[in-house]
């Protein structure tokens, strides 16, 4: 099945091409544009219809596209993913919403055993153009299972692609590109940044989905982050600049496949790398970056690659999350250690 090409020139073009939007609104507009561009795009999830999703990311979509394209599903994550597989085989492009990161695990079996492997099993005869949207990460004072960062499980699984947006412009474009992709994409949304604002040019030509991006240039050390930690890293770079330290900040954007060419290029100049992520550090995205950078940039490194991450514990009660989550001070502390090596 060939995916109908998305015509971005006419897709839901608003009155003014450049608008200031929240990540939440940008995602909503991106989803709307994808649904308008391709009638096979459907939304599936719990409470995403009338309610518009618990974070309102799908607000208004069921009203405009109907109950057959925006499905309020039974409350079962394996069911959401498992039926999305069947719908994808039938020619649909399902976009599944997992209400919170910690609720993805009932669907884990279907994601790992079917979504990730059907293309390989059939050697390309079946494609799985499924997007699984996951609001992830902590910092919102929530109860257990509502603040997790499970991205490494999926980056570890061959057959899946994993991305995370960090700003409204990326949110708008990346969600559309993920829906356009013929591979299954885990789309991690930084839930505590949903209401941060930024400029979105809906007439722009977006760069490729699976590319990392240098957001701030610097010379003394490199920070690499994704999702909610990009904002933290940029704030850290601002603070460091006041003390005369120049930090380069790279937004990974794609966690699988990793696009580390900009990281290697940066580390070869700065000699120092700090990877920032909310997820526990062991066997994580941050670990993978550290391994690859030491392999590719061995003679350029002036200090070991350092990781600033959540701890290797379950996500703690929320009164402790400020201590658990990497923040500006912990990032700068790691930068200081790197510079002092």
């Amino acid at each position, binding site marked *: 099945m060939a995916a109908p090409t998305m015509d971005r020139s006419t897709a839901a073009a608003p009155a003014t091409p450049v608008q200031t939007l929240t990540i939440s609104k940008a995602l909503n507009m991106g989803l709307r544009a994808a649904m308008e561009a391709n009638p096979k795009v459907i939304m599936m999830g719990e409470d995403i219809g009338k309610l518009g999703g618990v974070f309102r990311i799908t607000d208004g979509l069921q009203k405009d596209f109907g109950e057959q394209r925006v499905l309020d599903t039974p409350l079962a994550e394996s069911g959401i993913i498992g039926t999305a597989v*069947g719908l994808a085989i039938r020619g649909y492009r399902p976009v599944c919403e997992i209400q919170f990161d910690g609720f993805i695990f009932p669907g884990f079996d279907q994601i790992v055993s*079917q979504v990730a492997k059907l293309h390989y*099993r059939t050697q390309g005869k079946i494609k799985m153009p499924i997007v699984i949207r996951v609001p992830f990460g902590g910092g919102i004072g929530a109860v257990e299972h509502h603040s997790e960062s499970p991205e490494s499980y999926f980056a570890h699984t061959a057959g899946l692609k994993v991305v995370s947006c960090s700003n409204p412009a990326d949110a708008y474009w990346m969600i559309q590109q993920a829906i356009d992709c013929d*591979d299954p994409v885990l789309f991690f949304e930084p839930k505590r940044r949903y209401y941060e604002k930024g400029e979105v040019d809906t007439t722009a030509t977006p760069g490729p989905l699976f590319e990392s991006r240098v957001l701030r240039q610097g010379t003394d050390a490199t920070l690499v982050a994704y999702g909610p930690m990009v904002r933290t890293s940029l704030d850290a770079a601002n603070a460091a600049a006041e003390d005369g330290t120049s930090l380069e900040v790279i937004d990974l954007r794609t966690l699988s496949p990793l696009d580390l060419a900009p990281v290697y290029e940066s580390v070869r100049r700065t000699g120092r790398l700090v990877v920032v992520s909310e997820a526990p550090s062991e066997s994580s995205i941050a670990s993978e970056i550290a391994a690859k950078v030491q392999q590719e940039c061995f003679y350029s490194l002036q200090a070991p690659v350092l990781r600033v991450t959540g701890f290797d514990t379950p996500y703690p009660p929320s009164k402790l999350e400020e201590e658990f989550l990497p923040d500006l001070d912990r990032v700068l502390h790691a930068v200081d250690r790197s510079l002092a090596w």
Partner: protein
Amino acid sequence: MSSPEQWTHPEPDAAPAATAAKPTAEQVIAGLRATDEGGADLVQLLTPEGERVQHPDFDIDITAEELRGLYRDMVLIRRVDREANALQRKGQLGIWVPLLGQEAAQIGAGRAMRQTDMAFPSYREHGIAWTRGINPTELLGIFRGTDQGTWDPVEKRFHPYTIVIGNQVLNAAGYAMGQKFDGKVGDDEGEATMCFFGDGATSQGDVHEGFVWAAVYDAPLVFFCQNNQWAISEPTERQSRLPLYQRARGYGFPGIRVDGNDVLATLAVTKWALDECRHGNGPILIEAFTYRMDAHTTSDDPTRYRLSDELEMWKLKDPIERVKVYLVRQQWADSAFFESVEADADELGEELREFCTNMPDPPAERIFSNVYAEGNPNLDAQRDEFLDYVSGFAGGEH
């Protein structure tokens, strides 16, 4: 229907005695016992003795030619099964999953489907594959380890074998939802989906969720549960205290228990269920009451967990013999017919052996091929590095 007491195990010290008010657990689940009949609700049109019987709700008009065709299907797929089992014993297959005893359940269900219907199998559905026009040679690679199924699932309308128990039930529910969303449900030209799973799978969450989803979306889906009485070593009473077909009621759709060793009854019930679905009255659960005559797989040893008496009793209910008896009694087939079917089976067996022993191993590149539809540069680099490493051995002795 016999009384439940008749089915109670003679283990006086093992279970609490029944009282008038409280039956033993075994009495509660009596309708499930592998060693017994399927109970009063069992739909049967051809008895194990080859007697054609009537059922108030289900019947079928079948011509001599059609019944000869069903007989031939069953004989041929049994031969495929026995040949493949033997190929495993000779080391040509890593493992085989026998269907012996389930020929009628699969041929009856498979022949009820139309070309436009879709099927989602588990991994024992060699008979369904046969009815979808898949050459049995295409099943061998899965068990030899050269591929993971080579047929085109879209063209054949036969999904790849699913090995994780129950996963395919949700996939089938989604596909059937798609048939409905596409407007392909509602009249006699409608489409339907069939999903195959076993008694063990009914304990899986995915099967439960599949029941829920298909029900709330009115999906045109026939759940076809082959209750072959054994999930490897675990009897059906480890999965349910209720006869499996009765579960459907709790989800809000019909459940029917059919004699899975009766190809006519299976065909009749499945045709009815598919027609209901294509008209928009789905989903429907069919429990095909049958028996796994051989091991779970060639790696299994059923003598560790079940009695040979049970096997001997089920041999009397053989799905093929009863059709042969009926064909002869009706004078619908002569010895020339039966000889020609045997000759066809011999030829098919020879083709399988020939094909299997000549199957080449896949090239090393196959490890990396088609992991992604749109590629992955990191994986490409890993592949190139590995192939470069492998090429270092080219022509060398090692």
